[in-house]
């Protein structure tokens, strides 16, 4: 970021306003509905929430003439269901949702999503409150595909979650906070984000993250320009800057997620060779092939799925 400021003279302010997609949406929905400024030039949101903003017309189109580096976007993220042709959004970083565990507590290595339901781990399991992550993984465990799931698939997965919750098998449904519990040994197994476990690796080399053999979820956090931004030109300059492989590698070195920029892996090997070897940051093709993306849900479906999911997690 300081490099960018030096190169362009544009001052960047990085704020961590967003703790939770839904909470942030509740905050910006009203002003954007009335076309009022939210005082941010770029916001970074997860796929489905980015999709909701695009559908609602809250996002400004990206100006491709100011974005030559768009060519560096990796192929499998070029066309996504919520933003065909990437007219409004491009990934900031991607991450994987799978199973994180503490081998000292599990006493063995895990390979399958079904291991999380092993009765031995009763009361030592957490899952995520982020519906698409938890639901997607359980669907995969049930042999369903989150990329074209039906309501029946969601109901089946939720019934399984509810049963485990009611029996006391699941200790909590969490946001990022499961990571501390996993490191502290309060829990043995968690549905976990790859970046969190990679981030903890330095202090807790024992913690593991796996993509279960049934498959794992892939999500991206996407940069969007709110339609009320009055400096869209500056925002485009920053987005273009981020899509230079060397710059993207710098971002990954600071936040251990997955770059969506071609060639960032090679650049990362130059500045942080150890990190570049981690499959959590630089997933090999075999792993990439097992990653799934939750399909786009209509607004009505979103409410419907959320209803049964919230019921399953007891809230």
């Amino acid at each position, binding site marked *: 970021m300081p490099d960018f400021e030096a190169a362009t003279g544009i001052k960047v302010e990085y704020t961590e306003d967003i703790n*939770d997609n*839904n*909470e942030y949406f*509740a905050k910006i929905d009203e002003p954007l509905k009335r076309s009022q400024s939210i005082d941010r030039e770029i916001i970074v949101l997860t796929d489905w929430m980015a999709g909701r903003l695009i559908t609602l017309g809250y996002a400004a189109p990206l100006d491709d003439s100011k974005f030559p580096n768009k060519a560096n976007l990796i192929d499998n993220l070029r066309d996504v269901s919520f933003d065909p042709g990437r007219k409004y959004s491009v990934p900031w970083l991607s991450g994987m949702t799978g199973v994180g565990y503490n081998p000292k507590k599990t006493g063995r290595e895990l390979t399958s999503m079904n291991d999380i339901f092993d009765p031995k781990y009763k*009361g030592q399991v957490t899952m995520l*409150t982020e*519906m698409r992550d938890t639901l997607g993984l359980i669907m995969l465990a049930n042999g369903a595909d989150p990329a074209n799931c039906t309501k029946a698939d969601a109901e089946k997965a939720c019934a399984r979650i509810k049963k485990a*919750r*009611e029996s*006391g098998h*699941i*200790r*909590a*449904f969490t946001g990022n906070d499961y990571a501390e519990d996993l490191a*502290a*040994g*309060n829990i043995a197994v968690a549905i976990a984000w790859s970046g969190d476990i990679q981030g903890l690796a330095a202090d807790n080399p024992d913690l593991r993250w796996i993509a279960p053999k049934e498959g794992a979820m892939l999500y991206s956090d996407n940069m969007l320009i709110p339609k009320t931004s009055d400096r869209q030109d500056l925002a485009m300059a920053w987005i273009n800057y981020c899509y230079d492989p060397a710059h993207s590698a710098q971002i990954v070195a600071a936040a251990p997620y997955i770059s969506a920029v071609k060639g960032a892996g090679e650049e990362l090997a130059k500045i942080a060779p150890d990190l570049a070897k981690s499959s959590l940051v630089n997933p090999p093709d075999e792993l990439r092939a097992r990653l799934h993306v939750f399909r786009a849900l209509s607004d009505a479906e*979103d*409410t419907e799925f*959320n*209803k049964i999911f*919230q019921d399953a*997690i*007891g*809230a």
Partner: protein
Amino acid sequence: MAGAAQGGARQSRLAPYLLVAPGVLWLIVFYVIPTLTLAKTSLAVGDAPWWESYRQALTGYGDHFLRSAEYALAATVIAVLLGYPLAYVMAFRAGKYKNLLLGLVILPFFTTFLVRTFAWKTILNDNGFAINFLQSVHLLSEGGRLLNTTLAVVGGLTYNFLPFMILPIYVSLEKIDPRLVEAAQDLYNPPSSAFRKVILPLSLPGVFAGSLLTFIPALGDFINAELLGSPNQQMIGTVIQNQFLDVRDYPLAAALSFVLMVVITGGVLLYARVLGTEDLA
């Protein structure tokens, strides 16, 4: 006192209204208008009959309402049991340490509610010293835990609202005329019956106010259940929060909030009737 000067009659008739005006204005802007908006939201159910969101609220979330009431009641009772003796000591026995004790009761308020509740998460950590100690003296089974249990949620609620119990009781005890207690003892009442016949009845308004100040916020609380509970301890506040933010079923969330408010208001009125006090400390 009844015969005010004739000249000031008009002025004194207006004065009470002027005095309550700021408070009434505040209530209109921050209570009446939001409540009406909430009522409107709860009825915005599209084609369904107008009571649809209320039907869902009443049929689908009985467990959560009941659980919230149980937890809030438990926290209130424990707070009375802990708070009354402490307030008693502060009012009658503390001597020069009175202000110090009062300060200590208020001290936790200098840190925010959320941070204090997070701190309990660390204290009750499965591998923390508190749990290890309880396990080593066999108060807790090997592999047992406190975090994410009912006990932790009720404990958190009690802890967070205890000062609201202590302070009103303290105030009502403090203003009891010591001569009344002396008179009771002069009339050959042993201390226990002096307490029962004089101090306790005179301090009831404080207990009443403290119970309301503890029970009502505890009933609507969601932080303690969220941070210290497991998914099987979620309270009605959690449901309302999730319906507003995650499911975005605004009518249902509004209906749930409304039902909660009605339950609280009804409960308070009933409580006031039974305890029959007009003097809220």
